[in-house]
């Protein structure tokens, strides 16, 4: 018997240790790769990028193809929506280029399509995206004259400093431009012209490159064109170049819209098309984003099975559930280690949940009022000598009525306190009233008060635990902890030591 007992504890302890290791590893992994924080980071920037496409239909069936945003190293897509009534939408991924395809039948009026994307900084991405080695670039097709100019430019560029792309960028951006440069461009050169020229020059030199279109995220930018940058594959990796300053690397708050030379927007069955972007900055609780953030941060299959891969609604439900094991642990501790007797095991837990919804003081006051009125009514009911089931049912109905009156009064007199009444679980309230009134009749009001007080006390302690943003964050983000809690609870099931209250109760027996 003793052996069996020892082995149960041994197995549970082993389970506890393993679960701690497992949880620790997962926490490490999540912090390192999914970018989870130990503390709930309060706020995160969320950018809304709106793409406004407009064109005039030619009377043929319409097909619009627009480069769409995809998650990058720096930014993740939180949400996107398309306002294009009557259009069928489809996403397409071709050669690492994401496009949004919208199709519809022929139209006559000018068309406006809005494509909105919510982004937030992907501080968790941490260099997870690697690109494959690109093939050698195709030589550009230039006429003889331009080829000659290009050769001249290449010679000139050699004298400048920096790596190959930088040399070209510096050359093309010289102020004032030399005549060779000027002759290579139209009179007024645009960003696009420069980018294309750079691309051609690099291709002649055999450097794989691609034009990058992106958006600099700045607060409240309206109706602008995308910025051009250039990516070149040098030193066996892709590097991003600012085509004006020759600076290498991703600028801050910059999101890449499209890589490659394809057009940003293609419209079949439309003309005079234009695409304009707007940016709006907002902030959101980063805890709300944690799941999305994590989901987007990792490409691994392991993620598919994690909570964070679920829709937000389910996540929120689970976030709520994830806190329960801890609450249960607290109640087990209260009962089996401290030795506080409560009315039923889970009454305090349900009460504390209600307190979370109502807020602490309003909830507590409301609870006291409901129980108080309930007890008075129950005392009157007991004079009627009703049978048990109808009597409890009557108490339930009274509780509902009390809640109703409180809510209405609360609304009428704008007392927030009273209107929180509805959040208390009706059956639990009725049951507390019933239990307390029986104890009252049998053991007197003091014992009844004690019972209610104990349950409320445990509920309050539980409340402070489950309402802590910090603890909730931890329990949700590092949900493996629940496994640890499971083993602690089971180990507590083998705890045979004294309860704290017994140290007092049995004090007269103590021997020193």
């Amino acid at each position: 018997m003793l052996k069996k007992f020892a082995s149960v504890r041994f197995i549970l302890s082993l389970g506890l240790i393993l679960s701690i290791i497992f949880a620790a590893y997962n926490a490490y992994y999540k912090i390192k790769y999914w970018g989870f924080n130990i503390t709930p980071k309060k706020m995160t920037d969320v950018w809304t990028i709106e793409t406004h496409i407009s064109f005039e239909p030619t009377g043929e069936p319409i097909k619009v193809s627009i480069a769409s945003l995809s998650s990058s190293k720096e930014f993740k897509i939180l949400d996107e929506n398309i306002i294009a009534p009557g259009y069928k939408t489809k996403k397409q991924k071709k050669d690492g280029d994401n496009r949004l395809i919208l199709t519809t039948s022929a139209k006559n009026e000018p068309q406006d399509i809005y494509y909105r994307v919510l982004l937030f900084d992907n501080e968790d991405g941490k260099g997870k995206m690697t690109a494959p080695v690109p093939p050698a670039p195709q030589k550009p097709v230039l006429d003889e004259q331009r080829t000659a100019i290009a050769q001249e430019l290449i010679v000139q560029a050699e004298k400048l400093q920096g790596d190959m792309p930088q040399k070209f960028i510096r050359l093309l951006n010289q102020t004032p431009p030399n005549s060779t440069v000027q002759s290579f461009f139209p009179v007024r050169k645009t960003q696009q012209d420069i980018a294309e020229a750079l691309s051609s020059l690099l291709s002649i030199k055999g450097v794989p490159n691609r034009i990058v279109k992106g958006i600099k995220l700045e607060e409240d930018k309206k109706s602008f064109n995308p910025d051009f940058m250039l990516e070149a594959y040098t030193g066996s990796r892709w590097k991003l170049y600012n085509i004006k300053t020759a600076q290498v690397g991703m600028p801050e708050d910059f999101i890449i819209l499209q890589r490659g030379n394809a057009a940003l927007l293609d419209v079949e069955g439309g003309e005079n098309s234009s695409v304009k972007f707007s940016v709006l900055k907002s902030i959101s609780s980063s805890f709300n984003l944690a799941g999305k953030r994590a989901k987007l941060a990792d490409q691994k299959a392991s993620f598919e099975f994690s909570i964070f891969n679920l829709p937000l609604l389910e996540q929120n439900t689970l976030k709520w559930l994830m806190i329960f094991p801890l609450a249960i642990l607290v109640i087990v501790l209260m009962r089996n280690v401290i030795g506080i007797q409560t009315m039923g095991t889970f009454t305090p837990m349900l009460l504390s949940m209600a307190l979370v919804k109502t807020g602490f003081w309003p909830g507590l006051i409301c609870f006291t009022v409901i129980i108080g009125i309930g007890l008075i009514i129950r005392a009157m009911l007991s004079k009627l000598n009703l049978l048990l089931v109808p009597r409890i049912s009557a108490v339930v109905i009274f509780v509902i009525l009390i809640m109703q009156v409180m809510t209405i009064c609360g609304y009428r007199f704008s007392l927030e306190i009273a209107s929180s009444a509805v959040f208390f679980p009706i059956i639990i309230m009725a049951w507390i009233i019933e239990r307390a009134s029986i104890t009252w009749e049998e053991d007197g009001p003091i014992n009844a008060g004690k019972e209610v007080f104990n349950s409320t006390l445990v509920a309050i302690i539980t409340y402070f635990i489950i309402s802590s943003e910090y603890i909730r964050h931890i329990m949700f983000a590092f949900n493996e902890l629940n496994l640890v809690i499971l083993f602690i609870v089971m180990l507590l099931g083998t705890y045979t030591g004294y309860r704290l209250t017994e140290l007092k109760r049995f004090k007269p027996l103590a021997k020193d």
Partner: protein
Amino acid sequence: MFGKLFSSYASPSSLKKAGVLGMNSRNYNFISKYNRRDLYPLVDDKVQTKILANKIGINTPGLIGVIEYQHQVDNILNIVKDYKEFVIKPAHGSGGKGVLVIKGYTPDAFTKASGEVLSYNEIYQHISNILSGLYSLGGKYDVAVIEELVHFSNIFKDYSFQGIPDVRVIVYKGFPALAMMRLATKMSGGRANLHQGAVGVGLDISTGSALKAVMRNVPIHLHPDTHAELNKIQVPNWREHLEIGAKAYEMTGLGYLGADIVLDADRGPMMLELNARPGLAIQIANGIGLAGVLKNIDDTYPSGLTAQQRVDFVLGKKS
């Protein structure tokens, strides 16, 4: 202030030294180990307990009848027609809840032990309440047991306020381990429940004489209401008390149980009920830690004895 707070708590080691049994240890090391769950109904259901007790030869108040369904409630007068007095109680009750002691009656007036008179309707209501589970654990539907009245021996009359004293014996592996007498007080409302303020008198397990007395954890010498000297208590027919406890082990198969025994003036000690989860207050009444006693039984008591031999063994331990 903290010092005072602190001094009202004992250190775990000092309790361990005194062999005090805590709730967790009781549940884990004794109840869950020695009391099989499927045996609980034998003691939780007073009808079953009674039937078993009769089989094995333990004295209990005679069963007059059982009311199982609401439509039988009106039978009550018919059921008790041969009796001048009777007791109605829920089969699954605890703590004396729902026990109605009727000392005498006419078809529409029932006199309680306290002298209060109830109408037929009130009796009807009471039985209905029992059936609906009002007094039962978890509020489950229950049945009403109607049994003969115990005529309490007058010996302890001076020791109890209103209610009836009973003897609780803790029986471990069939050996009576600890015993106490519970005496009702004004504070306990005439009930013999320690947590309600009844007096607990620890009894020497081998003699049945008082060791010490406590009320609400505080040692006392005189009964608070009757002022009788508590240390003078000597339970008569002690051997028979122990026999009931010892036989209850064979009867139920429970390795750790509490037997509640009352002394009938004519029929001697009678078992009122058994408990598969007896409380721990008995330690305070005795000033003796239960864990130490149980360990001693584990370590030094012989096994394979009959109930009589176990009682002999315990009686022979006279100190």
